[in-house]
């Protein structure tokens, strides 16, 4: 069995404990020994993408120190995994990103499972987040895992591949454009009539959810929490 280190991400550390809990539950259910190194903080994505290369390199270096000894590093974030894989090589000359897996990659490519034994009797629509889908190339992996969930009813999200308008500091710097993108995403999500909107990144879900709380629509949920559910 590989030594699995869990990288929960700074966003989940601060705001969404239910998601990393779910990851632990899923992996343990499949027989993996999961470790949570407490010295972890942030992958450095916000700094890198906002143009602060040196700060990003410091945080990337710290990430490598914390996670260097693990065979596999699992994280419930497509964009953090993409950060390590795409940017660490030229940022700090490290290929640790090759061992960083977004949850669905680990489950399908390493563990070789699609059915993780979950039950979730609800209607769910799925938003493929940009970094997960395009930068990381997750394809339909999270969806394949969701399809295997008992009792779930998946509804297609119209214009699913359109960005929700988050983009880190973009949401603040270009607040108006971001809000216009968000409005369309929320409208499409509401149109599905689903109970839940699932995605592979809580940062995007914070953004979409923040809009949905106002306008009404499906409840945002990280897909890991669906996979952990046995209700």
């Amino acid at each position: 069995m590989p030594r699995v280190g869990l990288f929960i991400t700074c966003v989940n550390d601060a705001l969404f404990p239910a998601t990393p809990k779910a990851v632990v539950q899923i992996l343990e259910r499949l027989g993996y020994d999961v470790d949570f190194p407490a010295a972890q903080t942030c992958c450095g994505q916000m700094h890198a993408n906002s143009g602060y290369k040196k700060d990003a390199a410091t945080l990337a270096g710290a990430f490598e120190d914390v996670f260097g000894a693990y065979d596999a590093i699992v994280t419930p974030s497509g964009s953090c995994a993409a950060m390590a894989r795409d940017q660490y090589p030229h940022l700090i000359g490290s290929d640790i990103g090759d061992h960083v897996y977004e949850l669905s990659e680990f489950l399908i490519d390493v563990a070789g499972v699609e059915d993780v034994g979950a039950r979730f009797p609800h209607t769910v629509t799925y938003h493929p987040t940009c970094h997960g889908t395009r930068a990381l190339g997750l394809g339909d992996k999270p969806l394949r895992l969701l399809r295997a969930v008992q009792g779930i009813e998946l509804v297609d999200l119209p214009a699913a591949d359109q960005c929700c308008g988050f983009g880190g500091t973009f949401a603040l710097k270009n607040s108006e454009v971001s809000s216009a993108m968000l409005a369309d995403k929320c409208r499409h999500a509401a149109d599905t009539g689903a109970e839940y909107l699932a995605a592979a990144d809580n940062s995007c879900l914070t953004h979409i959810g923040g809009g949905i709380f106002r306008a009404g629509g499906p409840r945002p949920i990280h897909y890991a929490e669906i996979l952990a559910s046995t209700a």
Partner: protein
Amino acid sequence: MSTRIVPAASLIPADAPFPKAAKVALGMPQLRKNLAHATGTIRAKRANVAGELDDWESLRDTASAIKADVQHRLPELAVEFERNATAAGARVHWARDAQEANEIAARIVREAGADEVVKVKSMATQEIELNEHFEAVGLKAFETDLAELIVQLAEDKPSHILVPAIHYNRTEIRDIFDQKMGDAPKGLTDEPAALAEAARQHLRRRFLSAKVAVSGANFAVAETGSLVVVESEGNGRMCLTMPRTLISIVGIEKLLPRFADLEVFMQLLPRSSTGERMNPYTSVWTGAREGDGPEDVHVILLDNGRTGVLADEVGRQALSCIRCSACLNVCPVYERTGGHAYGHVYPGPIGAILAPQLEPGRHDDLPYASSLCGACYEVCPVKINIPEVLVHLRQQGPHQAGERAAMRAAKAVMARPRLWRAALKAARIGSMPWRRKGFLRRLPWPGSKWTVSRDLPVPPKEDFRDWWKERQR
């Protein structure tokens, strides 16, 4: 009956920072409707025809490799082009910047005994503002591409690389013709065929009388000294064959080593730009030939900032661009703002990486005009990694002082696990009053930039770390 058209460029401030200009564009409902409709249509067409080719991905790889090779050997290829074009009877001129290119072009027009030119749609001439320069020195330039004609008549600026009038619908186009064309037929309707016929009649007179034509080029083949223009209306073919004098203004990055390289690009370009399988009018010419087309053929090779871009190892991939516009059509930002908000002839994702490099120190706001969603990179036929270049340019600075301080503080905390844990705890305690509600609806600036359209969740009572510690016992 027709409504007076107010040119969009006069409403959207070109010199304002992107967020400000974008805000104006976002407040123009008709513009947004026209843009969403047009980009949506081309986007679907492109996806369809690109998907038909089994070797699409290897075509992209090949094109990207050819362009990288050109960038490595640009000086050598430019000289090879000059040699071969000159041997075939063309006169090759070198222009360091817009000013030089405009002056050379104006001189040639005068030497040809003319005071007006017909134009083939060309981004290079938009970039150097040839029309404006000509007007200032008493020459006239007439656009002959339908969409460029519309923009010129409306006294507007292009809002898209390929479809400069993308922000107008056909009713607005009818009104523009009606009010500005002079010889528009009475009772002109907004039927596409009627509009095209009106433009055709209007342009025909120009084609027949013009002594000089000005064009750009999609490709310049070093091996043969040939230029290539790819267009779909036939107006280009008229300009390239009828007038006695032809001036082509060509950015040096348009070079291709071999004639055979065209095979790759002629598959990628039409499918990526108009969503067509094959391009309707492809004109290739090599120098001048007596009794066949123009006899007085000039090529102006234009730098205008390109060698500066070439010096940046990451940024130089922007010079691979073949101006297909696919990245604009899929961009969620462009779709909502249109081109004017970018304040540069090259808008959208390619503009966001090219404009600040061509004019260093200007357009510093453009690399931030993107959510880094990556849709542009996915469709780019020459595989320019636009998100990578955007991030690279952001990292060159400059950064606003307040933001830099905030980022540095965040890093200082995140780089020390104990401080980070303390900060998380402080946030949990500090947000306690809002815990029951679960979110914040209104924050002071700069948080207001978030809460203008979204709630912000507050940290829950128990965090993951407590839970983890608890179960380790």
